[in-house]
């Protein structure tokens, strides 16, 4: 469906609003294709169309919400009635309120590539098969490809409110991803590689395949090292995941509700001087770039940490109002939830030196190429973190033997202060943060 059609539905719902109540309607539609191949055959091919609506009602200072997975007329009416009824049972809060137009113009972004719609299913299958072949051919020690996938999505959404918000847009995206199995001497290791873009022409099969091969094969022969404190070098894919967690601690919601370890630290030096952290969904390079936030306000560039100094928290309309300011255009949501606050396209400002040069300056360290258990091992409230990790030892400035079954542990507070260098290799990933090689001193590596 086209954004205009969705906006028309959202406006229709908002038109049903009664005197004294605020109504917000978020309507989304997407069409997705996903191909998975295995051993030269199509394992599965899914074609899917989905849509949904989320309706928020604020009346008498109370908020209610309901959502549904269809756009049928009777369902829209039912969903609004349900949201209205839910609002009766919430606690009153003087800061509840929908977003209001704030005069900020949305950025012009080229997120919708018609070319994606013209690509045949045949050619999508071919990309996945080509990827699987490239991984298999990459190294004789590759014994299997657990999965090689091509996927794409065409999405459109619209938001309308009784407070005058009207926003709609559409975008396209596609990806290739492969999980490889490498084996030698009865030992198996895994690796992954991917490529993302707005149209299939953006996808780079060779890089995705080479990453999947290298990540698996270079782990062959890995052993568990003894416990020690070392300098760790986080690979961009790993640093992006940590940045995402740090970004979460800078949300206005966490701050207002006493769950942010940086709540009283505005203006303080919370990180090494090399750290400048920016959330910028207006950056067209970002995979998660967007012209409007989850409440229909224009997105904008927000610098959170500058030269290590904490400068700003992110806000949606509610947290902005409650903290005495305004939204920073940072409402995040799907149609099935009310808006939260979060980063949309977070990145560190890259440094001057490439990863190889940074590694050359380290006598004793570990290059971490993968972490596991982030959801169980990082507590964003206390800041304690401890995650499973694997990677390569760094000895006298060179990459050495692979290590596995280790954990790396510190606190988020310490880690930011212990950043020794930021690499020059900023890489946008299929998540709401970008990766860059990051050198962190004094991290405990637990092993044997």
């Amino acid at each position, binding site marked *: 469906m086209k954004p205009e059609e969705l906006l028309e539905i959202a406006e229709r719902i908002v038109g049903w609003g009664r005197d004294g109540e605020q109504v917000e309607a978020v309507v989304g539609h997407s069409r997705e294709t996903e191909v998975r191949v295995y051993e030269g055959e199509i394992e599965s091919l899914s074609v*899917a169309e989905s849509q949904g609506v989320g309706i928020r009602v604020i009346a008498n200072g109370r908020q209610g919400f309901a959502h549904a*997975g269809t756009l049928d007329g009777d369902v829209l009416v039912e969903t609004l009635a349900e949201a209205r009824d839910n609002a009766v049972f919430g606690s009153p809060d003087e800061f509840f309120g929908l977003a209001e137009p704030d005069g900020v113009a949305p950025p012009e972004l080229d997120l919708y590539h018609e070319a994606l719609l013209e690509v045949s299913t045949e050619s999508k299958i071919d990309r996945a098969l080509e990827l699987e072949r490239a991984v298999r051919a990459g190294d004789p020690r590759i014994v299997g490809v657990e999965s090689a996938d091509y996927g794409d999505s065409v999405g459109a959404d619209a938001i309308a409110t009784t407070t005058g918000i009207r926003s709609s847009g559409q975008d396209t995206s596609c990806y290739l991803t492969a999980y490889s*199995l490498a084996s030698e001497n009865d030992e198996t290791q895994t690796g992954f590689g991917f490529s993302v873009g707005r149209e299939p022409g953006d996808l780079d099969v060779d890089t995705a395949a080479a990453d999947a091969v290298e990540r698996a094969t270079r782990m062959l022969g890995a052993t568990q090292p003894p416990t020690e404190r070392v300098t760790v070098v986080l690979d961009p894919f790993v640093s992006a995941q940590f940045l995402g967690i740090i970004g979460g601690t800078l949300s206005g919601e966490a701050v207002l509700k006493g769950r942010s370890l940086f709540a009283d630290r505005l203006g303080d030096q919370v990180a090494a001087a090399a750290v400048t952290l920016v959330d910028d969904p207006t950056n067209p390079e970002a995979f998660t770039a967007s012209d409007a936030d989850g409440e229909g306000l224009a997105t904008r560039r927000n610098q959170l940490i500058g030269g290590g100094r904490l400068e700003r928290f992110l806000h949606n309309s509610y947290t902005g109002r409650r903290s005495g300011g305004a939204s920073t255009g940072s409402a995040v949501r799907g149609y099935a939830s009310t808006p939260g606050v979060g980063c949309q396209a977070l990145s560190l400002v890259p440094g001057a030196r490439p990863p190889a040069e940074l590694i050359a300056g380290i006598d004793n360290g570990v290059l971490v190429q993968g972490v596991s*258990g982030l959801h*169980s091992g990082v507590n964003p409230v*206390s800041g304690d973190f401890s995650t*499973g990790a694997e990677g390569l030892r760094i000895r006298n400035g060179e990459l050495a033997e692979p290590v596995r079954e280790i954990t790396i542990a510190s606190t988020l507070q310490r880690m930011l202060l212990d950043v020794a260098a930021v690499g020059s290799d900023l890489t946008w990933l299929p998540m709401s943060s970008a990766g860059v090689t990051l050198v962190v001193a004094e991290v405990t*590596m637990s092993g044997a």
Partner: protein
Amino acid sequence: MIDESVVVGTLSEALKTGGEFAEVFVEDRRSSSALLDDGKVEELTSGRTRGAGIRVVVGETTGFAHTSDLSEAGLAKAARAAAAAARSGGGVHRVAALDRIDAPAPNEVEVLPETVAKATKVELLGRADEAARAAGSAITQVSARYADGRRRILVANSDGVLAGDDQVRTRFAVSCVAVGDTGMQTGFESVGRPIGFELFDEYEVDALARTAANRALTKLAAQPAPSGSMPVVIGPGGGGVLFHEACGHGLEADLVAKQASVFRNRVGEQVAHPEVTLIDDGTMAREWGAYAIDDEGRPAQRNVLIENGVLTDYMWDLLRARKQGRESSGNGRRQSYQHLPMVRMTNTYLANGSEDPAGIIAATDRGVYVAHLGGGQVNTATGDFVFGMNEAYLIENGRIGPPIREGNLIGNGPEVLAGIEALGNDFAMGSPGTCGKDGQGVPVGDGTPTLRVASMTIGGTAA
């Protein structure tokens, strides 16, 4: 939910251009939740989704399409899309006469949540908030969530299977923040069962809230976790996730078939201590991962995976089982009608042992006692897994000592199985969980008695 004649028509449409197997999965899901945070009932949310997923299998290829349009025409359109995706071809197969499969529900549901007044649900939240804050002045923030869901499904396939299930789940969770000289700490507790509002006859929300609050308060005094390898004792109920990660995932037939499991080709081998028996049981009454019928129309089963230390079988879904010419084990599950089913666990637990739990702790000179585990993650191909410690203590000279701060433990599945050296006689099931695999989340349960693993790596920061 839809007429049998429409089901048959849809299956026929799906096989019109060829194919060996077709399936219609219809789902109607209603959910409601209420969230209290920061002293206020922030919102009540209601959700409704319904739709159908249709798959067609031709040779090695599965074609899949889904739709939220449950009309005869809408289903036929999705059936043609799934057939086209499967590329059709092969012989023309007929739809066998549908034969309804009935399976007993794991338990009764007494009070359907949809019949309970919203005000009654909201009232629970306020009680939890009060009880948590009363647990200590250091408790500075509380959030409590009530959630219920009802999922009705209908599955029919061209082999003649017709089955349905009505799955109700109710859950309550509390999380607290405590602030002290050492900074902020968090505590969490949740309960959930495949039952209705009678959940709250069994559990007092006040008590749950106090447990969550006390976890946060205890951690204020916690010292940094040690780093390095040492013996680990896991408390009853709190440790099932260890086996979910250490070997459960590795026993899923889809991963085994793709050579992505360290347990491949090991059926019949002694993989653990002779007292270790691991079971996955979807029929377990009142446990979070239970159901009558799986998402492929197969009744849930009790499957013994490891018996007396010997690996006996993997878990199976329909497609993987068909290839092997055997029956599914009732483990074919999917997150929603928008997803393809795959092999998933249900309630996975380590059966009771024979030792006195106090004796297991007393026989441990120095180590870590984990009372409550958090989530985990595994790489099934290497067997390396991690899980979080939500509540843990040092063991010093055979006694449980001071609390330690949160962190992950890391181990290797086959090594940990082989390293189990003591099993207690105090079996208990743990908290309700959500298991994620290939982007799909499904409810699962787990359980263990007290047990000791000879050595695992603790991911702390202390020497």
